[in-house]
């Protein structure tokens, strides 16, 4: 064989080695929100998402084609998936993983042959994590968001999972920029001008403890979580449930309701079952507000800056009266997902 032939064969061999190397998944070791170390492909190419807010983060940074299946979740589906079909043209065709109670259907998961499952879990011994690891041998990334810092960390994580860390950094910068729109104003507010806020989860007297993401949100929005004044054993819980009398004692200036299908602020102000609250400042001054759309103003998703602005505007209306909320919402959705809101037209 001529030396030129050897040379050509050598070049072809090198190319054979080189081409796959440039496209191959890099395996990386990452830590999930529960501190578990897992090996994943970066980018992971067959990812199953079982929670909407993590998917929202992923769609802001990653290739939607790498999402192969989603959890079959029916609650307020249209609201929940608002931008998804625009970001991902194949969204409606995604396979849905059935769920019984909290248990994901292992057979339907096996059918989609995922290389990563992203799910919500509060413990490494979560039954879904154990079942998927034991049976399907698929890495599971556990999401457990308890603070606003976790939201930023989720953006970084989705950057690694999608192999698109540059876009993740960009998204974080956008988010931080929008957060500053609010905090540049609220940071100037004196302690004495910060209203006491009672955060009302859907169980009414269930609220946000001092060590919670909502507490951070209230602080950043220029308020003070009234649970800071509660008994120590209550304030240190993440989700303490207090009673009417304790709420009267705390006497918040503002009651901020998480989205509640059964109650409106007017029910708290004038409802027969809430007569006991009539002497607290928030009710006397009709300062009871509600998060009207739990997905547009979700503090534990990339839309956290919008939730922050929403709360800050209600707490300090005079300081944000120049902010056009609709325009901000639209621009934010364009910046993060490239979709106009609420028209859902691709930007």
């Amino acid at each position, binding site marked *: 064989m001529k030396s030129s032939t050897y040379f050509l064969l050598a070049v072809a061999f090198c190319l054979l080695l080189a081409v796959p190397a440039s496209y191959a998944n890099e395996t990386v070791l990452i830590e999930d929100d529960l501190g578990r170390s897992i090996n994943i492909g970066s980018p992971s190419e067959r990812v199953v998402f079982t929670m909407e807010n993590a998917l929202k983060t992923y769609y802001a940074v990653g290739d939607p084609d790498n999402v192969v299946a989603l959890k079959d979740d*029916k*609650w307020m589906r249209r609201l929940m998936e608002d931008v998804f079909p625009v970001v991902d043209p194949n969204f409606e065709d995604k396979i849905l993983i059935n769920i*019984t*109670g909290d248990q994901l259907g292992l057979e339907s998961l096996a059918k989609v042959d995922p290389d990563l499952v992203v799910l919500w879990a509060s413990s490494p011994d979560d039954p879904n994590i154990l079942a998927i690891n034991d049976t399907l041998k698929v890495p599971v990334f556990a999401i457990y968001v308890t603070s606003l810092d976790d939201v930023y960390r989720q953006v970084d994580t989705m950057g690694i999972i999608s192999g698109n860390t540059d876009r993740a950094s960009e998204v974080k910068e956008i988010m931080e920029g929008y957060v500053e729109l609010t905090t540049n104003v609220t940071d100037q507010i004196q302690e004495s001008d910060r209203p006491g806020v009672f955060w009302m989860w*859907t*169980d*009414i*007297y269930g609220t946000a403890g001092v060590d919670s993401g909502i507490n951070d949100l209230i602080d950043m929005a220029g308020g003070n979580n009234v649970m800071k004044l*509660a*008994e*120590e*054993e*209550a*304030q240190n*819980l993440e989700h*303490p*449930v*207090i*009673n*009417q*009398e*304790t709420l*009267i*004692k705390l*006497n918040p200036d503002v009651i901020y309701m998480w989205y509640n*299908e*059964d109650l409106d602020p007017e029910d708290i102000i004038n409802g*027969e*079952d809430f*007569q*006991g609250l*009539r*002497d*607290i400042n928030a009710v006397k001054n009709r300062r009871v507000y509600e998060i009207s759309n739990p997905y547009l103003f979700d503090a534990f998703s990339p839309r956290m800056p919008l939730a922050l602005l929403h709360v800050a505007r209600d707490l300090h209306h005079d300081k944000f009266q120049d902010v056009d909320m609709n325009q901000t919402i639209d621009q934010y959705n364009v910046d993060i997902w490239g979709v106009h809101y609420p028209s859902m037209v691709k930007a």
Partner: protein
Amino acid sequence: MPSQTEKMGMARERITGRSLLYYLFLSLPLFAFFSSIFIGPFHINPVQLVDLMASKILGYATDYPDVYSTVIFQVRLPRLLLGMMVGASLSVSGAAFQGIFRNPLVSPYILGLSSGAAFGAALSLAFLPGVSIQYAAFFFSLLAVALTYFMATTNRSTPIVSLVLAGVIVSAVFDSLLAIIQIAVSERALQSIVFWIMGSLGTASWSKIYSAFPLFALGCTVMLLLRWRLNVLALGDEEARSVGLNPEKYKIIFIVSASLAASSAVAVAGIIGLVGLVVPHMLRMIFGPDHRTLIPLSLTFGASFLIVVDDFARAGLGFEVPVGVITTLVGAPLFAYLLRTTRSGGWE
């Protein structure tokens, strides 16, 4: 050896002591109420509190902050009254059911009442937001009892064993239906269902009292007026017939009355465990099995027991603990102590 006169004297002393104890237990709700009204997370000076209450009754004006009046009359008072009503309902119903069934393990929930109520509440919370939880729970609790009764009745006779078994079956069916709802609902609705099932007086209001009181009063009054017949029913159907009592008729009357009282309690407070089982037992251990004393004492002691336990639920910690959890934690050791210090749990 004591003489006959000495023996009679000792017996008289015992009777006098027991009578005193009886009247003490009958008056317990007053003590419990007037101590509990001073307890709460919102501190009000006891003198001011008494003055405010007196001003309300006697109609004179005071210059205390409005919030004092709101805390006492809109928050604490309805909660105490609702707690007394619920405790009394569950205890009297428990005592009546234990008498009818001649079984110490029976609680007001034996005929599927709690399972039916839980299903009704879950249905309302998950799928029927327009339907009040209270009414849904009440309707399904009574439906469960009715199903149990009709399932157990054959040839115009309702044997106790059939009733217990039918109650188990109906409870199982409603528990399964509840499980289906819990699987199908969102996490938020599931959380509400779980809280409701744990039982709490945290949402007490005057409207709840007004809606539950008529059925509570009706059920308890019937059981109080007919209480001596429970002594006959407790002997068995044959013995009841031999003294001219129609056992089927009175079984229905007591089951309907006890179910109405217990359903009205469960509908407003959720499923509060152990009160209906433990309170009648405690009283039986102290006063014996005679329903003529047991039913009125169940009413007063049940009412007192629940509000005292609820004092801890609402003011013991900085956060609200479901009262059903504490009734079990408090009731179980108290019950165990009495069980170990009395013979046959007071049934002999």
